[in-house]
């Protein structure tokens, strides 16, 4: 479904199988259905550095109507439990980023103890440059809807304040094979 506050397409849980893992480990947990390829790439980076993560584990209400119903909410893309940090990624156009910034400010006002980092398109680009994967950014930038093609939409549903997600993945702790790739 499309988030009415940002225009960003953000689908929910999918009934079908999760996207395949990035490698051939058979004991790896299933991947959640990421909303965007940049999120999948971030998950691979976090896995690589053995940083545990959860995908969209909570939804935070940020606006209510006079009747007390939640009319706007925010679901950060990642939660890094070992770091106590929420991570929200966006590759959106600047106009939409402003709306996301506004939501983030509201989130911080209402939940001041929450640690949230907004990862902008320029941050993702810098990360990919560092890792020599700049071509990936060009492939992802400006993709309409910001949605991976293998993800199915779920029926529209109201926000679920602070509800734990059923989509959860943590980093793998498998023994790696030898390689020759060195860090910078």
């Amino acid at each position: 479904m499309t988030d009415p506050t940002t225009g960003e397409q953000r689908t929910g849980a999918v009934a079908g199988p999760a996207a395949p893992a990035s490698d051939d480990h058979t004991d790896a947990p299933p991947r959640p259905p990421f909303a965007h390829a940049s999120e999948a790439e971030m998950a691979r980076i976090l896995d690589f550095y053995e940083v545990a993560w959860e995908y969209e584990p909570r939804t935070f209400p940020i606006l209510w109507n006079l009747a007390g119903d939640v009319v706007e909410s925010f679901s950060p893309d990642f939660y890094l439990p070992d770091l106590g940090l929420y991570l929200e990624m966006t590759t959106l156009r600047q106009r939409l980023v402003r709306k996301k910034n506004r939501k983030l400010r509201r989130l911080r006002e209402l939940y001041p103890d929450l640690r949230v980092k907004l990862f902008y398109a320029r941050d993702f680009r810098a990360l990919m440059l560092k890792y020599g994967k700049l071509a990936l950014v060009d492939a992802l930038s400006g993709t309409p809807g910001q949605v991976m093609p293998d993800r199915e939409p779920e029926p529209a549903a109201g926000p679920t304040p602070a509800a734990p997600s059923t989509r959860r993945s943590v980093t793998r702790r498998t023994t790696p094979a030898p390689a020759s790739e060195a860090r910078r």
Partner: protein
Amino acid sequence: MSDARDLEADVGEVLLSEDEIQARVTELGRQVSADYAGRQLTLVSVLKGSLPFMADLMRAITVPVRIDLMEVSSYGGAATESSGLVRILKDLSASIQGEDVLIVEDIIDTGLTLNYLLRYLRGKNPASLRICTLLDKPARRLVDIPVDYTGFTIPDQFVVGYGLDYGELYRNLRFVGVLRPEVYAEPA
């Protein structure tokens, strides 16, 4: 991009001159020497980028030092494709159990590599474990890591030189500079 002259031409702005770097490294050496006065220190350099900084810093430190080298795989290369996990490519040559250890880094940005390294080295039971980085790019930080010694805090720009590379080049520049965007916009 085949010789040093061309490499310098790829740098759009000199962020830190050779003199500025040397002056700051000398200061850091004094500070480290004062903090570890009367003790022996093990410097652990994280390859490859920290090599020039390590070479200069160790000579600016006046307390007895041992040195060791580590190399950690980086995301995005062959290692990523084959395993998907970070690994130690070059481990310490000697035990650091009970030693005062100072990790010497060229740059800290996301903190992901250093976070991994810290966890790894803590498991080797050093008496103390601190961090010294030449460059800190806090705008990029994902993992909050307390840095004990920082040479320079720099803006969010892609820098090369004094050990820092792009495509394994530019490490031999004597200064730190901002790479012109058109250099990395070109196909590698």
